């Protein structure tokens, strides 16, 4: 069912099975028929762990969305609330419980906190007089959810905002807990590297937690060699730039949520003769995107400009395969052909879908505005005219292009100039407030607090030093047959991934100077292993590094890491973990504040 999770170097199905087992055990504690009341935000991530069929096997008969007043009628023995530990949700639950119809059959209430029980929330339930109504109050430590064979996410929407704006480390604590769970399943990770304030905190918490757990000695042979913890604010640049990989562009244009994307239906109309194309579907086409789909696995991380040729090659192969039927003469040959049909048809369906998606994307990427925007981004990233007001941004504001697009560009310019001159910054801000409304002053404050938008201090622009030392801008990029990670942004090599690459070879000692310019401490910790568990690497065997992005990671960065994993002489394979899968738009949006 989730075979694609076991394709990678590390079998993430082990984790999925572990969390599924935990879920089943909880459901079985509440004997009898059940209804689940969902904190709506959780349904997406849960879908990656357990389909409805699993819940049904454990007598879940109804599902509701958590909302105020009385619960819908359901003839079940148990009502289970699946919620994040948030005070506002506790208030709703209390309302539900208090307005329960006492004349009806008595129903048992339970709460499952995801990912952690909270004393604060239980106190609130107690204050509201309903704590005693719950028979089971448990936690479901679903911290890291497996998305793909090499990808884990906490899907914690506001993690970046909480960490960098509100100094709230809750998500870091969950991240550390998630890492402890991983280590319980995959062995102690012998070396921890990190860069950034949050990374330091997570490492501290891990070391502390390990001390708490000593005694229950972990005797699993370590699967991961290294852990690299990276603060998102060490590299604010990468998410701001437009991703140019296939998957990255799908996310930029349509938004991928919990591995699903919703697409305009027109392009997916069934092409049958005689229909006359009358009944165009009106509901969005929903597709799941992961490496379980062979074709998608092949093209997702390619630069979009290299996708077309793959698709047309695939088309030829598939139609050739279908032509084979004319050559099938004997009964045996026909049988052979028929047995391959399902696979061929699936491949044809997959090809049709991706051809349609590619067409949709192409409409966007060939537009003049996309080209203009990309040109400006690339100028900024390569260090051209970053210190003055940009006329394209000015025009975007004047034409009231989406605010997020404008903010993204202004922030990009600010980051590429180590902050803007006060005059330039004030000009942009004033233009934005006058055009989009004064209320966005709160959003601007947030961006400034997060360091995305700031005045240049000390009159010094450090970005060129960083760019040159880390080779962030590559002029000779090969989009078709890439030789460097910079292909994911057609020229810009994501800083975060470059740091990972340099760590594995030749080591960070070579870039001490740049590391000092970037925010937060960099560090290395060792977790001693008993001698019996120490790894003896076979010659030519790659290391496995778990890289954890605190504050979010983009698909383009993931693509770049996968590119490094696949390099023949790379020496390192990566498994990626993050608090949230983000893109520039969703990221900026999480920092926006709308007072009305």
């Amino acid at each position, binding site marked *: 069912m989730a075979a694609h999770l076991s394709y990678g170097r590390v079998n993430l199905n082990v984790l999925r099975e572990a969390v599924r087992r935990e879920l089943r055990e909880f459901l079985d504690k509440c004997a009898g028929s059940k209804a689940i009341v969902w904190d709506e935000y959780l349904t997406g991530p849960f879908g990656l762990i357990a389909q409805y069929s699993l819940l049904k096997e454990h007598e879940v008969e109804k599902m509701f969305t958590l909302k105020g007043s009385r619960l819908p009628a359901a003839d079940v023995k148990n009502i289970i609330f699946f919620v994040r*530990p948030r*005070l*506002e949700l506790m208030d709703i639950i209390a309302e539900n419980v208090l307005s329960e119809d006492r004349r009806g059959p008595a129903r048992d209430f339970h709460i499952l906190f995801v990912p*952690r*029980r*909270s*004393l*604060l929330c239980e*106190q609130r339930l107690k204050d509201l007089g309903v704590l005693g109504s719950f028979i089971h109050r448990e936690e479901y430590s679903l911290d890291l959810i497996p998305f793909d064979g090499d990808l884990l996410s906490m899907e914690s929407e506001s993690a970046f905002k909480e960490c960098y704006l*509100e*100094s*709230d*480390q*809750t998500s*870091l*604590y969950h991240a*550390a807990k998630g890492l402890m769970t991983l280590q319980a399943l995959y062995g102690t990770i012998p070396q921890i590297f990190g860069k950034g304030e949050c990374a330091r*905190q997570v490492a*501290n*918490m891990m070391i*502390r937690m390990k*001390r*708490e757990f*000593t*005694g*229950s*000695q972990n005797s699993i042979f370590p699967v991961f060699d290294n852990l690299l913890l990276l603060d998102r604010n060490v590299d604010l640049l990468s998410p701001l730039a437009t991703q140019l990989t296939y998957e990255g562009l799908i996310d930029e244009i349509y938004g991928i949520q919990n591995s699903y994307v919703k697409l305009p239906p027109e392009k997916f109309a069934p092409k049958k003769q005689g229909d006359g194309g009358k009944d165009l579907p009106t509901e969005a086409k929903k597709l799941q995107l992961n490496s379980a789909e062979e074709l998608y696995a092949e093209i997702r991380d390619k630069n979009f400009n290299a996708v077309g040729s793959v698709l047309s090659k695939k088309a030829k192969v598939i139609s050739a395969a279908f032509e084979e039927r004319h050559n099938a003469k004997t009964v045996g040959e026909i049988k052979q052909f028929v047995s391959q049909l399902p696979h061929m048809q699936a491949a044809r369906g997959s090809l049709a879908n991706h051809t349609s998606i590619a067409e949709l994307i192409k409409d966007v990427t060939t537009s003049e505005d996309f080209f203009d925007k990309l040109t400006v981004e690339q100028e900024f990233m390569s260090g051209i005219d970053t210190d003055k007001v940009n006329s394209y941004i*000015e*025009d975007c*504001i*004047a*034409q*009231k292009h989406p605010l997020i697009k404008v903010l993204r560009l202004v922030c990009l310019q600010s980051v590429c100039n180590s902050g803007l001159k006060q005059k330039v910054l*004030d000009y942009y*801000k*004033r*233009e934005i*407030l*006058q*055009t*989009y*409304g*004064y*209320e966005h*002053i*709160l959003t601007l*404050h947030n961006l400034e607090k997060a360091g995305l938008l700031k005045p240049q201090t000390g009159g010094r622009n450090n970005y060129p030093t960083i760019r040159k030392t880390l080779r962030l801008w590559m002029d000779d990029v090969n989009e078709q047959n890439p030789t460097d990670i910079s292909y994911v942004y057609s020229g810009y090599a994501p800083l975060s991934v470059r740091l990972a690459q340099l760590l594995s070879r030749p080591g960070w000692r070579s870039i001490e100077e740049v590391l000092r310019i970037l925010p937060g401490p960099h560090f290395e910790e060792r977790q001693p292993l008993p001698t019996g568990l120490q790894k003896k690497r076979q010659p030519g065997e790659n290391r496995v590094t778990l890289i954890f992005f605190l504050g979010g990671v983009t698909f383009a960065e993931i693509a770049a890491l996968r590119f490094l994993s696949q390099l023949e002489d790379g020496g390192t394979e990566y498994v990626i973990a993050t608090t949230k899968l983000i893109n520039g738009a969703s990221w900026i949006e999480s920092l926006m504040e709308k*007072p*009305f």
Partner: protein
Amino acid sequence: MDCYTANWNPLGDSAFYRKYELYSMDWDLKEELRDCLVAAAPYGGPIALLRNPWRKEKPASARPVLEIYSASGVPLASLLWKSGPVVSLGWSAEEELLCVQEDGVVLVYGLHGDFRRHFSMGNEVLQNRVLDARIFHTEFGSGVAILTGAHRFTLSANVGDLKLRRMPEVPGLQSAPSCWTTVCQDRVAHILLAVGPDLYLLDHAACSAVTPPGLAPGVSSFLQMAVSFTYRHLALFTDTGYIWMGTASLKKESQKADEYLREIQELGQLPQAVQQCIEAAGHEHWPDMQKSLLRAASFGKCFLDRFPPDSFVRMCQDLRVLNAVRDYHIGIPLTYSQYKQLTIQVLLDRLVLRRLYPLAIQICEYLRLPEVQGVSRILAHWACYKVQQKDVSDEDVARAINQKLGDTPGVSYSDIAARAYGCGRTELAIKLLEYEPRSGEQVPLLLKMKRSKLALSKAIESGDTDLVFTVLLHLKNELNRGDFFMTLRNQPMALSLYRQFCKHQELETLKDLYNQDDNHQELGSFHIRASYAAEERIEGRVAALQTAADAFYKAKNEFAAKATEDQMRLLRLQRRLEDELGGRFLDLSLHDTVTTLILSGQNKRAEQLARDFRIPDKRLWWLKLTALADLEDWEELEKFSKSKKSPIGYLPFVEICMKQHNKYEAKKYASRVGPEQKVKALLLVGDVAQAADVAIEHRNEAEMSLVLSHCTGATDGATADKIQRARAQAQKK
């Protein structure tokens, strides 16, 4: 080999028994045993003696002494009995001494004579007094059964969870039964009693007569009865001098290891023989015997190819442990079967109970038990004992404990600290908590001890925000507001968490927090939010914004202050516009306000507004262009385009006209587009031929390809050729 079985005595047809002396008792008894109440705990446990002054006529002034000995007679405790008359003594499974008083009160003592607690067997017992009592063991724990003066039985099957059960009456019972005992069947405790020649079984509902099968006739009374520890076997002693035993069969031990080895081997029984030698060694009490049996097994093993070694190794280990605890100084004469049933964990507990920590640790290390189950647990017990030594200073106790325990995995310092706190040693508890690595364990105890501030810093260290919140809410109730705020001020992480809490739960407090910290920037933002959320009336909104602007000035954020003042001006103006013109203006951006004015034909007011708020020229041109095109007011647009030289060029004019599908108007502006964008403009209005001419004239390759890509219609053939020719020519040069 015969010597091994020399002391075996036959018991019935198929079983044997033997008797041997375990210890020559070390005690120095002043009383005759028969004058004492005696209780020996099962499983090699301790022995309690209480001289019984209530049965014999003795001077009442002399209080009896309760003495406790190990099974080898080593004195463990001795105390003067100051309570009431005792009828019976017995040991619970946890090795607690239960003393049943005549009034039905049961006093519970520890192994070292320390008083633990007491409980009563109920009113009925109190009124009728206790005639006789039995302590018995079930799978739930240890129970007490009472025979009262009214010849009724009351029992509790588990003294740990006291539930009294009064048993039904025995019909016709006028005097005490000649003998009785408790029997457990199907997890329920019953009473078996003998009255004359009859036997009765009492359960909680009824009394039924029972007859032992095959009992020799002529019995008129049963003198004694005994049940086996497992309740599976029963022995009755009759007045006719017989002992009746129900299915009593003792395990027969094997003694087959001898020099007829080859014969056995031929019979293929060698593995079995070796195994039996090993087992037999386990059941031997004397090390010499154990050794010779094990040697025999080891010898036999040599002739076997594949005899798994673990049973031999395990037996050697078990015997070493058993011999160690059987030692006279320790005095726990466990049999092998008892040891196996008890488990090593319980044996360790019993050593801990006797404060034999070093031996317990040696055993753990010898058996290589995981630290959490073994050494750590024992050290923790030792530490709990240590904190009760009140004559040692807090410093010394804490240091001694930490020296011994260090970072031993699995040791719960908080448990030890809780014990110290329980003994009233708060300071010691705090010192011990310092060594506790789990904050989740530290914090609740610190709160309980009213060390909230320390609890707060511990919670912060852990990174567990929920824990921090818990302490914060605790502190908030405990401290006055000023102190609470001061505490927060010293803990930035807690402060930011509390701010988040207030943002959602207590807005006013949030403001106070910002005020306390002179955080004017955040105060400004706070008032901006308030201007949207709290205020409906325009005056209120403006006032809130004024406060915000003042805060921004204090924060030296000139830009925000000015922007806020502009917004106040705009709000007042929008209100006036709504009054004068109707329609909706409030909360539109400045840009949209100007656009709305243009769309409603208020060009003059629009101009005025743009001037007042200094909208940059370029944006104003875009704004007007867009608004006029929306209105499709082409005349006004043309007038506007000619008002002065456009700061945004003329291509946007072409684009916007084409967007409104007005090619005619678009063409007017295409001619005015500057040379750089000319080709683009011409292509937009569909004039491919002219676009080609311009591109060729510019000798611009990019422009030429652009035009070429637009040459799609049949009429464009000539144009395409023209470009191709120009290109070819350019290449020649």
